[in-house]
């Protein structure tokens, strides 16, 4: 099972974990990105995520395929959520399974890092003083 998605509803980690389960897997590794109450010293009240959905799904799928060929995964699922998220809510979930723990955790890192730097998703942070700001990396690695 290899699947990427952009969703607007809360991410159901249990369902994803069941979806990624495999009798050949000895290891399941999961990453959840959650909204923090603070960023670079400013108090955050929530984050509005937006995405170029078709491209985000495609780019995340490419990353999962890359991870499968690098690490030999039994399954890999990446889901990014968009919309208004409150503190503690999950914006991204990566769930994968592998026969062995080492490559499972290697693959988790690969998928999370690549998704953060390549998936066309943006966040508008809302601060306690009512201001809002786009947060972003330079994305300098791309052509």
């Amino acid at each position, binding site marked *: 099972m290899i699947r990427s998605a952009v969703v607007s509803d809360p991410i159901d980690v249990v369902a994803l974990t069941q979806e990624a389960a495999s009798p050949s897997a000895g290891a399941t590794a999961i990453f959840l990105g959650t909204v923090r109450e603070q960023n670079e010293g400013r108090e955050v009240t929530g984050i509005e995520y937006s995405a*170029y959905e078709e491209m985000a799904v495609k780019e995340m799928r490419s990353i999962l395929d890359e991870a499968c060929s690098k690490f030999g995964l039994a399954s890999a699922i990446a889901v990014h959520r968009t919309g208004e998220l409150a503190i503690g809510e999950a914006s991204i979930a990566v769930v994968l399974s592998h026969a062995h723990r080492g490559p499972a955790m290697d693959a988790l890192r690969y998928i999370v890092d690549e998704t953060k730097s390549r998936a*066309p998703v943006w966040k508008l942070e809302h601060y306690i003083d009512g201001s809002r700001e786009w947060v972003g990396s330079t994305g300098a690695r791309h052509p």
Partner: protein
Amino acid sequence: MTVTVRLFASYAQTLGRSAVDIETPEGATVEDVVAAILAMPGGDRLPPRPLVAVNHSYAARGTVIGEGDEVALIPPVAGG
């Protein structure tokens, strides 16, 4: 030909819209499309070399745009 360029996040906010139509000659490249957008009113507030996607993939600056291609400017990403 007319190329529709999609805008997102801070770029959409900067230009006050989510897409712009650009008139380009046949054989126009990503570079040409970016130059046309930067020359629009407000375009000077975009970075000089924004990332561009063609048909949902990151595209090099020399990539030739064809009729019907989906072009988008991609602001610095911040997923996860």
